[in-house]
């Protein structure tokens, strides 16, 4: 929970809601509900994504979001991602330019999730950028996002495609 206090307001609400769910049910979805054992050598076993979703589009690119959850007591870094709907996929962050405008760019070193913590991918923040889409990404369908972790293990996540009008920030330097 200590990580989520640093997150944006909207994210906090999402996090709190999911933690409440975990508190009241037998199945644990939240990262901190069950302490990690720290025994696993495979990071993939300790990594999951809560509420993964992709913005629907009929254009050439879109983005994937969700809460990356690390249940281990070591840091985990997502170093790459691929998807079932795109030929080119990058890990992006959103930065503020000198003129105050916001833009996206590839995130050096990937997304690092603290031990027992979370890392939120959301519109206006970090996200998985899907480029050169191989098919229309249609609302109500599912896209598989495969995350590669820093120990080279991989995790495939089924992500729901949602209609969403936001998440159309500019790309840094117009390079995409």
């Amino acid at each position: 929970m200590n990580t989520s206090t640093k997150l944006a307001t909207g994210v906090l609400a999402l996090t709190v809601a999911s933690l409440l769910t975990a508190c009241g049910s037998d199945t644990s979805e939240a990262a901190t509900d069950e302490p990690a054992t720290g025994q696993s050598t495979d990071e993939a076993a300790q990594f999951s994504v809560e509420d993964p979703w992709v913005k629907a589009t009929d254009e050439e690119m879109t983005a994937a979001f969700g809460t990356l959850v690390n249940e281990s007591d070591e840091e985990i870094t997502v170093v790459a991602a691929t998807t079932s709907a795109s030929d080119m996929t990058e890990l992006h962050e959103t930065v503020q330019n000198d003129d105050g405008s916001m833009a996206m760019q590839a995130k050096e070193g990937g997304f690092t999730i603290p031990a027992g913590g979370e890392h939120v991918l959301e519109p206006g923040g970090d996200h998985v950028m899907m480029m050169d889409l191989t098919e229309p990404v249609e609302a109500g369908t599912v896209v598989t996002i495969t995350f590669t972790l820093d120990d080279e293990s991989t995790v495939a996540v089924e992500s729901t495609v949602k209609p969403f009008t936001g998440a159309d920030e500019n790309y840094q330097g117009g390079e995409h």
Partner: protein
Amino acid sequence: MGGGPTWDRRRLLRTGAAAFGGAGVGWGASAVVADRAVAADQATSAGTVQLTPAAGAELAPAAGRHQAGITTAPQAHVALIGWDLRGGPTSSGLTRMMRLLTDDARRLTAGEPALADTEPELAAYPSRLTVTFGFGPRVLDRLVRRPERIGLVELPAFAGDRLEESWAQTDVVAQVCCDDPTTLAHARRMLLKDADAFASLRWVQEGFRTARGTTPEGTTMRNLMGQVDGTVNLDPAEPAFDERVWAAGDQRFAGGTFLVVRRIRMDMAGWDRVDRVGREATIGRRLADGAPLTGQNEFDEPDFEATDRYGFPVIDPASHIARARHRTPAEQFLRRAYNYDHTDLSRDGGADTGLLFLAYTCDVAASFVPVQRRLAEIDRLNEWVKAIGSAVYAIPPAAPEDGYVGQQLLEPDTDEEDNA
């Protein structure tokens, strides 16, 4: 998480009762929102000290194999949403739409934000939110195999109806009910956003009852003509309820039901000219307490044989209750109506006022249709009420676990279907 020292204010509000040693027994001790399994209809005993806005935290009780929002004690507000599928019904479009909308409903009714919710804070107080989905005749005919086994047919034309195209039958309906109008507005918007790629919005019919807590629980509603409305109604607790409301037979639809929607406009200016004696004679009940003119209390059986000292029936045989009363048990159905009242400067009195009549039955042709035919033929109330909208929907059973509402109909298990 488990009770760390960092308390978010909303979390504190939600779980306050538990945190303070269960002081707030009135709303069910532990956080209602936090536990989906809790049927949140525990009695809220008067006089209990409450730390929190209990009504906002309350979840509608789970309805098992049925969709919620049917036997749920009617919430204060409704938004009935009617859509037509774009380009006509297609299986892939409706399937994808129902996946998204069912997911939205699951999360929002649990007090959680929808996926990709842009206003997640507005989901925090579920206030017994329910979302009940249904399909119109065109969907059944085109997308469901052997639709005759489900048995949804369009309503016949009734004498006296003044139907307007703007309130006509649609392909898909969602009955969204909630005790809180802000939560309802958010849920409604989320559903509209997610449906837009697949369906065009035909209408939203808004309605209300008394605000939660205004009247004692279980009080029969009043309509805007001032009448106690809905005294004779099926009670989920009575044995006949299941037989009259829930469909059986076809496995794809068992536990489902049908929804009849009638938008009934009231001529309030005309009604204003009727005195209380005339109003009571029209209905056959007293305005003060809803008792039949032959009885003392609301739930007294009306005596249609009783005559006054001149030999005239006390309850006019042409009165509304005399005509509406079920003649056979099969004519009973569940009423779940809401009032509506919209500003309309083009109308006398500046308002369009009426009743959003919603009825649930497992057999429309055997229950609602004969009763409505009788009313269309003779009912003194007809002088002041007119149906301007009319529609009927198949309401599938609850979604399969991890599935979507209507999945049993749209993607039936082959074996099941062949054995149906």
